[in-house]
């Protein structure tokens, strides 16, 4: 009973946060925008604007060393006070705000069913303690360290120099309800991203429901929304930046509001990941292209979007300059006079030549492992978006196609991982919704059948991944397994971190050597120092009191100046496809002895 209550509290917390952000964001939207006929757009914009404004406030708290539970709770209370009148306004406009699905098309109903299953499965699975690698290396660890220190402390992994607006929202989730609530914040932002896909579908005259399904009912979406990454937040901001940036096509007079919104959302995207900078650039260029040849107006639009992108994202880039001298550290570090720093060393993709570029959409699906599970994108978006561009025959569709193409080029030649396509996927799904509509209206029976199969493979992948996530997490969510048991199975090195939490005093300062850099669950001050074990005297001199060494078995003998507190071994779990066990690791937790005790006899 207590467990069930805890689960309900976590869901209620994230629903409460979502309500505060959406109602607050709704209040911040200009009146004309609030009355926009595209309800999916209004809902997504309200959520994104409220969440984004909250993230900016939390970042300011971190800058002034107030990113602590008390101040974060005060932010929530302030948000509640601000949003209450807006809540009443939003409630009175609920019929216009909430999209009412009146479609009776059987395919749409199936799509809604698949999407509903995916959302229910991901909501359930995300209630488990977060265990995905990137989340516990930095997406959750960074905000948890920030909360502990009260400020945006420098961390020990290169990924922690990414801009972190979405992680600041995770910090709020951590304070309000712990790791699962933080992960559910990402789930919530994903819901907004799905709404933008539907908004694109509606705007382009395609099938809004199918657009939402093509973006949301995919393996990639399930993986993301259950993983406490930030990419769905980035997709939400990026999609809206493009949406409002290209709005001038239908709104010649007074496009200032739309362009300002585009700049704000592009700034939030650039403040959430380095790739968000490209959103600012491409959304700005798209904003010019839709009013061309009126280049004066286009230039004004570009300046507004570019300026707002830079201003809103700037805190994170200024932080990097202050910490490293390079605003985009570790990228292009040599340009800023520093040494080359490895960021992503895995060579994604099959090659960088023209043939591989042209075959990359099909490679993603047919042999997508080297694109970090490219198949998880599902085939519907790749099949139907090009048809949507040709079928729509409008400047907007061409501009969107060119934007997606430019993103694809940059993606292909930089780091072709499937999830890095997410920022342009909602609008691609909107175009795919147009493609689906075009086939429905003008396609042969065979074409309609193939589209049905493409949608079935796409949504089937999403539902299957959702079922897998539920199966993996059901025992811990259902209270049949403890958090520790679950994390020992699913979170690498958790056993070693448990020892830190059990055996070390709360003021211990721990050096982590070897493999232990996913430190979210280590509740002490731990700094990852890399592969090489420094002498004990050097660690002592740097203020460390203990050392955790994690590496392939067997570990070297205990060096001088250290006293072992705990040692052990454990398997690193992997999928059944990889044989169940990835490798076997050893750990040793040692106390660093004072110099007089540590010197050799």
């Amino acid at each position, binding site marked *: 009973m207590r467990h069930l209550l805890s689960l309900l509290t976590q869901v209620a917390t994230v629903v409460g946060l979502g309500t505060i952000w959406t109602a607050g964001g709704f209040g911040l939207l200009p009146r*004309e925008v609030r009355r926009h006929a595209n309800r999916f757009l209004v809902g997504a914009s309200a959520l994104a604007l409220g969440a984004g404004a909250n993230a900016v406030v939390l970042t300011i708290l971190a800058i002034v060393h107030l990113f602590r539970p008390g101040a974060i709770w005060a932010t929530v209370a302030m948000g509640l006070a601000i949003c209450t009148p807006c809540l009443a306004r939003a409630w009175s406009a609920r019929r216009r705000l909430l999209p009412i699905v009146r479609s009776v098309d059987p395919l749409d109903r199936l799509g809604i069913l698949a999407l509903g299953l995916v959302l229910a499965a991901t909501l359930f699975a995300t209630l488990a303690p977060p265990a995905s690698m990137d989340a516990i290396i930095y997406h959750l660890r960074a905000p948890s360290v920030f909360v502990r220190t009260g400020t945006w402390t420098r961390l020990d992994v290169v990924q922690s120099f990414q801009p972190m607006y979405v992680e600041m929202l995770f910090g709020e989730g951590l304070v309000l309800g712990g790791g699962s609530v933080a992960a559910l914040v990402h789930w919530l932002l994903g819901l907004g991203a799905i709404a933008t896909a539907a908004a694109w579908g509606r705007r382009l*005259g395609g099938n809004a429901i199918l657009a939402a399904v093509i973006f949301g009912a995919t393996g990639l979406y399930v993986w993301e929304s259950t993983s406490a990454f930030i990419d769905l937040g980035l997709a939400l901001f990026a999609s809206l930046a493009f949406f409002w940036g290209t709005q001038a096509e239908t709104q010649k007079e007074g496009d200032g509001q739309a362009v300002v919104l585009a700049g704000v959302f592009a700034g939030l995207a650039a403040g959430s990941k380095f790739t968000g900078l490209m959103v600012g650039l491409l959304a700005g260029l798209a904003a010019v292209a839709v009013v061309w040849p009126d280049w004066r107006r286009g230039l004004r639009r570009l300046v507004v979007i570019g300026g707002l992108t830079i201003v809103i994202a700037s805190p994170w880039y200024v932080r990097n300059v202050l910490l490293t001298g390079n605003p985009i550290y570790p990228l292009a570090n040599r340009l800023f006079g520093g040494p080359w720093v490895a960021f992503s060393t895995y060579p994604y993709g099959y090659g960088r030549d023209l043939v591989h570029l042209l075959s990359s*959409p099909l490679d993603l699906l047919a042999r997508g492992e080297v694109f970090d599970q490219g198949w998880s994108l599902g085939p519907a978006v790749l099949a139907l978006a090009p048809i949507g561009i040709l079928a729509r025959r409008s400047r907007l569709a061409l501009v969107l196609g060119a934007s997606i193409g430019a993103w694809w080029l940059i993606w292909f030649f930089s780091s072709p991982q499937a999830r890095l396509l997410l920022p342009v996927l909602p609008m691609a799904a909107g175009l795919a919704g147009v493609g689906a509509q075009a086939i429905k209206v003008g396609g042969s029976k065979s*074409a309609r059948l193939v589209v049905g199969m*493409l949608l079935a493979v796409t949504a089937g992948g999403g539902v299957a991944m959702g079922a897998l996530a539920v199966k993996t997490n059901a025992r811990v969510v259902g209270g049949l397994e403890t958090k520790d048991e679950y994390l020992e199975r699913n979170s690498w090195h958790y056993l070693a971190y448990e020892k830190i939490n059990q055996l070390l005093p709360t003021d211990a300062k721990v050096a982590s050597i070897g493999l232990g850099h996913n430190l979210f669950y280590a509740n002490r001050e731990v700094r990852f120092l890399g592969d090489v074990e420094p002498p004990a005297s050097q660690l002592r001199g740097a203020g460390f009191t203990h050392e955790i060494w994690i590496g392939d078995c067997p570990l070297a003998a205990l060096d001088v100046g250290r006293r072992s507190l705990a040692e052990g071994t454990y398997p690193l779990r992997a999928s059944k496809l990889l044989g169940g066990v990835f490798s076997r690791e050893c750990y040793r937790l040692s106390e660093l002895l004072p110099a007089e005790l540590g010197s050799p006899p």
Partner: protein
Amino acid sequence: MPPPRAEPPEEVVLPRPRLALAWLVVVLIAALVPIARSILSRLAR
């Protein structure tokens, strides 16, 4: 200022239906490759 319109007025028109069908089939086959590979590897075990 009146609220902006949401829907574009024109109907969508499918250009080159046969070419579109061919493209759809190619993408579908590409998507079925990993599924077929997975089924075959399970059968082989």
